[in-house]
């Protein structure tokens, strides 16, 4: 009798929990779209500047999101380019070369790295800036480069993990074929294992890209500013979409600025969702990776 009641209440509570969850998200996003969908247009990006002149950098956009979008784009490129080689090579080591003890030790370190709040990474980046600035006075400050390096550190554990998981889940039959035919371990890794797990590795990279694009805490300590235009070089400060959303949320000066804040939020959401979907389309084992955020 008690058991029946227990089972019934579990069913009821499960329905309730799932509906609360879905409804909360639906209400928040519905609100966002209701307010912001109307702002989506070319004008949101370029304001009163002719798009062509803006893209070719002949004119700076002052009343549109273009500099923030360009900043986020450059940031993502710089940080993933830095992180990918180290992350993939580290993942190969973890999957193929590390002994049991090494593996346990490194796993713990990478878990810790994955668990560090992003604002700590930002703080580390900031301290590095001050340190470098003392070393080379006047040349280095908070900048795109520092932010990109910090973000690379932030996504490194994902890349290592995704590569490691991808390699370890290659079918043992495939794994054994090449060595049996006389291939060396490195030949096996490069010619067989990597190509066989490429989809999973790319999926991991795409998730890392999404993480770089959405993070706010790191960049607000390391070089994102309110007004910068499109950065001219890696040592410039820059604008970025997430920082713009944060900035506008607290200090919009007019209904127009607030509206472009809603527009920016939808844009960032769309970008991150597309990346996520894309990652899932190319591979399906990603689920565990989502946990490392």
């Amino acid at each position, binding site marked *: 009798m008690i058991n029946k009641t*227990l*089972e019934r209440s*579990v*069913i009821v*509570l*499960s*329905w309730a*929990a*799932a509906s609360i*969850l*879905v409804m*909360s*998200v639906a209400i*928040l*996003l519905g609100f966002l779209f209701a*307010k912001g969908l109307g702002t989506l247009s070319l004008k949101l990006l370029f304001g009163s500047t002719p798009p062509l002149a803006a893209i070719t950098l002949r004119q700076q956009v002052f009343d549109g999101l273009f500099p923030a979008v360009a900043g986020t784009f450059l940031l993502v490129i710089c940080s993933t380019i830095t992180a990918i080689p180290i992350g993939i*090579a*580290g993942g190969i*080591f973890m999957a193929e*070369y*590390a*002994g049991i003890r090494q*593996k346990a030790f490194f*796993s713990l*370190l*990478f*878990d*810790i790295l994955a*668990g*560090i*709040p992003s*604002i*700590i990474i930002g*703080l*580390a980046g*900031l*301290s590095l800036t*001050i340190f470098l600035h003392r070393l080379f006075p006047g040349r280095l400050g908070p900048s795109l480069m520092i932010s990109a390096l910090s973000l690379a*550190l932030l996504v490194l*554990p994902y890349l*290592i993990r995704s590569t490691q998981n991808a390699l370890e889940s290659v079918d043992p039959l495939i794994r*054994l074929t090449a*060595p049996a035919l006389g*291939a*060396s371990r490195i030949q096996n890794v490069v010619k067989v294992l990597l190509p066989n797990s490429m989809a999973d590795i790319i999926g991991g990279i795409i998730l890392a890209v999404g993480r770089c694009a*959405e993070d*706010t805490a790191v960049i*607000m300590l390391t070089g994102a500013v309110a007004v910068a235009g499109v950065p001219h070089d890696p040592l410039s400060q820059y604008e970025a979409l*997430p920082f713009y*959303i*944060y900035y506008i*949320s607290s200090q919009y000066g007019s209904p127009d600025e607030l509206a472009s*804040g809603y527009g920016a939020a939808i844009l960032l959401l769309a970008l991150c969702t597309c*990346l996520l979907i894309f990652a*899932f389309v190319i591979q399906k084992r990603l*689920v*565990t990776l*989502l*946990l490392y*955020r």
Partner: protein
Amino acid sequence: MAEIFGKTPVPGSGEMGKRTLLEHLFTIAALVSAVLTGAVFVFLAVFAIPLIKNGLFFQLLFSNWLPQQHLYGIYPMLAASTMLASLSLALSFPVSLFTSFFITAVAPRQLRMVLLYIVRFMTGIPTVVYSFAALFLLVPLMRAILGRGSGMSILTAVPVLSLLIAPTMIIFFVNSFQRIPSSTILAADSLGATPVQKVLYVIVPQAWPGILNGLLLGLGRAIGDTMVSLMLAGNSPTVPQSLADSARTLTAHIGLVLAFDFDSMEFKSVFVSGLVLYVSTAIIMSIFRITSTISTGRRK
């Protein structure tokens, strides 16, 4: 599996030099990553040691933030972070657990997949977007409901933070439920157990390390999140007397007090906040690693 094959003697010969170079690069990459993790800690430690030696560390940990009276302590932020994280976890854990029951057993089959997709989609929603929407929807609502205060309070941040950490937990729970050996499940099936009975009497008792680990990851995320509390909790640097009070977390404190020279008390305060966050998340992740090693051990 991988270790075993990784350890098999390398058959064949050829290009010894080239091979070792590339293989060394793999090792170096892993080492570099490990060193970087260590570097973050060393940087924190290098600053911490003098502070701990002269007692300033604990003084900062347990005093208030009143710069005009030359007090740079982080005690209020410590209290706010603990309060916000534990409340969010307390709200998010039951919702996540029951949602994962829903996905595993309770829901009609098609709905399970739909919900799983929704949860995965939720992991991709940027924190700043959540906070932005909540700032304009939830804050005015809270102001009206509470009847006092600005609407920015711990109570405003808790549901948003709960929503943020829920998908992490749900995915972890669902995964750990699915990893229960099928022989056990089949045994339960053959005894005529309903899906709910399976969850209650077979899956949950076996999957507790997974549940604990999901909880740990959720806690780590809740402590470490910056934007939700920065944008929704009001940021006043006092120990909140009630949940309707404005409060500032450790992460928001680091974001707000932009300190640009190592010698200032502001920097030391921010830095101690960082160290506390680092150590607590490192402890959480270590427990996480230990429990997951135990649970994989059990499965074998």
